[in-house]
């Protein structure tokens, strides 16, 4: 049953009544929505503002938005998303446990594969590079809680804006090939992953994530040793990081060191209690009526984000405002992005840039012009090749899997 849902695409689970309310509120603008206490699609005014946020330059990184320094959590300023690939030094950073490994000797680094296998393996970085076929994929890496800071009602947690994501070319080896070398015994159910980071307190649950065996062994999940053609920055998980294309980055284990094949479901805090979403098609619930059942977050929902210029742009009557954005989903690829300037009554297609593969984001552009003065709110809606599109209302208690149609405010003057 859960498997079934895990594989479902994300058709709108929103009622027509909700939709009508949303569109009416969108017509009123963000202030109207906020005044009426509606949650879901907020004016970008409520977004944590890059300009007002402290910047920091950490090792191997350029100036990024400081979210927390211990453990390090850094957000990428939006303008870095104007290119297909996000530079390594601008790539967002997110650690859970403050005890990062601060020294790594690549000559001695070992990746352990154990558990329900015929032969437990201890692989060196050299062996990974030389004994397995290298593969590459361009894929979006997005934090489950990306954009949490703009959820309304607000929810506790890391208050990300839209920059807890990036798109990179990942190079490494197929997990499937490594598992085959170890020889998986019949009856494997899940595979768990652990890195070298530890908590300051021994009583804190170790950060371990698990994938169902069929996902882990699908030939797409990778152990990456390169990001955009270079070693991973230490803050992004050097020397090895799990890559789970199409899935949220909570599974993309950094400083990957332990892979364990399990003949029973994994039990642990980070799967059983944390990183869970409402058990329904759109991971939606309301503060008044929380979902009774939850499941682990997994495949990314379709999104489209305004990237450039920043919101609250000004443009003259009949002048052009060239907008840029990115859109992506959980792996079917982006079919179209549409823009509305009349609260969703009519939609016009944005221009899509060439695709770098279905796990990559797809950049889009749109030229907006208006013959009349006044405030305008633009909406961006993406549709994936699998037919999944975006909803007008979306909220959950943990601020995960944001997929709501985003706004961009402009003043025509």
């Amino acid at each position: 049953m859960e498997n079934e849902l895990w594989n479902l695409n994300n058709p709108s689970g929103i009622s027509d009544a909700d939709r009508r309310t949303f569109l009416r509120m969108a017509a009123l603008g963000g202030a109207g929505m906020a005044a009426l206490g509606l949650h879901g699609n907020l004016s970008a005014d409520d977004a944590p503002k890059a300009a007002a946020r402290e910047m920091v330059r950490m090792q191997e990184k350029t100036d990024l938005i400081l979210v927390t320094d211990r453990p390090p959590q850094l957000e990428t300023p939006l303008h870095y998303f104007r290119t297909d690939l996000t530079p390594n030094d601008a790539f967002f950073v997110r650690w859970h446990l403050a005890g990062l490994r601060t020294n790594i000797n690549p000559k001695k680094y070992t990746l352990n594969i154990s558990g329900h296998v015929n032969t437990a393996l201890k692989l060196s970085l050299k062996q990974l590079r030389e004994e397995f076929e290298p593969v590459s994929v361009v894929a979006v890496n997005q934090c489950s809680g990306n954009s949490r800071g703009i959820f309304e009602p607000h929810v506790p947690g890391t208050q990300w804006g839209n920059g807890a994501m990036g798109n990179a070319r990942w190079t490494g080896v197929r997990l499937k090939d490594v598992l085959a070398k170890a020889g998986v015994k019949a009856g494997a159910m899940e595979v768990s992953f652990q890195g070298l980071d530890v908590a300051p307190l021994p009583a804190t649950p170790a950060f371990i994530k698990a994938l169902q065996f069929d996902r882990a062994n699908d030939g797409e999940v990778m152990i990456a040793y390169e990001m955009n053609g270079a070693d991973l920055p230490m803050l992004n998980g050097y020397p090895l990081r799990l890559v789970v294309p199409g899935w949220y980055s909570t599974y993309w284990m950094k400083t990957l060191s332990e892979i364990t094949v399990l003949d029973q479901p994994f039990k642990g805090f980070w799967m059983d209690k944390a990183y869970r979403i409402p058990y329904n098609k759109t991971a939606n619930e309301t503060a008044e009526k929380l979902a009774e059942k939850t499941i682990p977050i997994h495949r990314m929902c379709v999104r489209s984000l305004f990237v450039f210029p920043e919101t609250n742009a000004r443009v003259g009557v009949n002048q052009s405002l060239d907008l840029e954005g990115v859109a992506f989903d959980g792996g079917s690829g982006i079919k179209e992005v549409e823009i509305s300037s009349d609260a969703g009554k009519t939609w016009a297609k944005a221009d899509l840039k060439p695709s770098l593969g279905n796990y990559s984001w797809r950049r889009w552009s749109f030229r907006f012009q208006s013959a009349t003065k006044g405030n305008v709110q633009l909406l961006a809606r993406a549709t994936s090749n699998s037919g999944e599109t975006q909803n007008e209302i979306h909220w959950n208690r943990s601020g995960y899997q944001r997929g709501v149609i985003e706004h961009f405010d402009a003043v025509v003057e």
Partner: protein
Amino acid sequence: MIRSMKIMCAFALMLFIEQIAAEEKPAKTIDESLHILELTVVEQKPLSGPNQEVYLANCVTCHTTRYVSMQPVLSEKKWGDEVTKMVKVFGAPIPEEQAAQIVKYLVAVNTNKK
């Protein structure tokens, strides 16, 4: 003479092909040096509030004060849930009466944000 020219041509061709191959696939040099990560601490003055010393004594072992200062305005119940989670799930050894003091601090500094 002709033969030696042929050999030279063949040799030049080989070099040429090798060069093309080299251009297509540059030999990757693997950096095998010891990698050291210097963590960056960005000092922040903790928010002032009642029981600040209890908060500092118990909470910043695992995380920076920014974990509190970044939060949106939350209810007392939500803050209580957070502290309970730190104790029960993350294993913070905080005595019950101190946990209650910490919640008071959190609510006070968080409400001041409004």
